[in-house]
């Protein structure tokens, strides 16, 4: 990654992290957008899968420090999602709105599934409702906000013409 791209990606990453801790609490929705995951996916498609997994691990540890009872679950989820996103990018990723939305949706849903299963905080019907209702809903909201974010940050993220 060129230094310019690194700076642009870092700027977008910081903006998304800030949005996660400012806009998300203001919205206060139960199915709220996950700006941290959008930031991770944004970085993951620009770096190698190993690096994406490392970034995911670090982000997950930092995020989990606010929820010590499920510490590590988010780190595991982000690590897997980051690695997967970076790996899958080479297979079918293209600059398409629908594919990007699907990418965000799947990333969020997969992350929630991993966290819910790894944290062992829910079971039975509540777990099923969370996995099959709320997680997809959060995925949809995250996908929508992800697309919106990409649209807004396009001037920053667009690579200069070579």
């Amino acid at each position, binding site marked *: 990654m060129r230094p310019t791209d690194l700076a642009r990606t870092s700027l977008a990453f910081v903006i998304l992290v800030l949005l996660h801790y*400012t806009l998300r609490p*203001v919205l206060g929705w139960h199915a709220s957008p996950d700006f941290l995951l959008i930031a991770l996916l944004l970085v993951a498609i620009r770096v190698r899968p*190993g690096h994406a*997994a490392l970034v995911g691990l670090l982000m997950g540890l930092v995020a989990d420090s606010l929820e010590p009872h499920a*510490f590590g679950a988010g780190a595991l989820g982000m690590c897997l999602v980051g690695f997967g996103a970076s790996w899958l990018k080479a297979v079918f990723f*293209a600059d398409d709105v629908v594919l990007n939305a699907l990418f965000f949706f799947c990333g969020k849903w997969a992350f929630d599934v991993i966290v819910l299963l790894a944290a062992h905080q829910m079971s039975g019907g509540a777990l099923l409702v969370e996995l099959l209702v709320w997680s997809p809903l959060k995925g949809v909201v995250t996908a929508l906000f992800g697309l919106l974010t990409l649209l807004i940050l396009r001037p920053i993220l667009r690579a200069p013409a070579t």
Partner: protein
Amino acid sequence: MTNVSRTYGRRDSVLFVVCVVLAFVAQFLPEHLRDPFTAALRHTVLAPLVALQHDAELTRQAWLTREARITARDSVELQSMTLDALNAENDRLRKTLELGARLKWGFVPAEALQGRDIGEEYTVTLSAGSNAGVRVFSPVVAPEGLAGMVKTVDPTMSIAIVWAHPDFRVSAMAEDGSAFGIVAAHEGSDPERYLLEMRGVPVRSTLKPGTLIVSSGLGSTFPRGIPVGTVLGELKTSELWARTYLLRPAVLPQDMSTVMILLPQRTVSGVDGVWQSGRGADAAVKAIVAAGDSLERAARLARGDTARADTTIRSFVSTTERRDTVRRVRRDTLPHALRDAARPAVHADSARTVPDTTRRAPATPAAPAPRDSGARPVP
């Protein structure tokens, strides 16, 4: 998104596996190791972000409680408005109680319900009737003064006309008694409709604005001394022999919620001293001073009369002495004169004896008349 070509190698796999293992390790980390680690993260990397999150949540709370706060503020304002009304009602009831304490006896307290329909603007329904001793023409009073008069009486309620009623009349006077007249409703346009006018005030009597007008007690319906209103100014009328004054009523329509109905016995015995104002006290002081002056004048007059009496007595004494002298002179002189007259005319010079005799009279010293004997001569 951008297309970045990458390669996937063993190094990535190793890194991935290491990360996954670390994530599992973190998940199963014992509490005594995990808590210091998470605390360190919260106090360093996450501190500004947590602060941001806290502020954002406060903002959300402020936004969410906005409606509740507005509702609460409106409720408080509404309650404060009610509180004002309650305070006003308390003041009103306190004044009414004070009036009751001053009246002491011969009255019936009553709630006044004001009509809202056409024709009921000038009447009030009172919550006391003939069972409580209320009679037709009983005066209705408020702490501020005269409110009206009972027109119709039922056993448990009565209807009274207030001062604004076109039929209402009260014989009234200035508080100091300097002018008398008849007070009736002022039938002017809307804003002035709720004023009174005092008619038939003699031309020689001038009332200054602010003069308190009270009931005069004439006509026996209203006892003397109930405040009726305050002079606002003189009204120009076509009557040349009498003045008409515009009055501000003592009792305003909103002050008629709780009133007192004076019973007939109380009306007869009067309400002296119940409505005593500052002006009344001034008038009383003036009356006392005037009475003092009168007494002094009377005393002075009495002293003057005594002096005059002394003078008169002295004059009487001197006059008596003079009369005695004259009598003596006459007594002494007349026989001589008669004797002389009985003498023959040849004794012509005997006539001289009379002048001699009369000349002798001044020889009798008479008391000199006193200087202030200008007093009426005693017969």
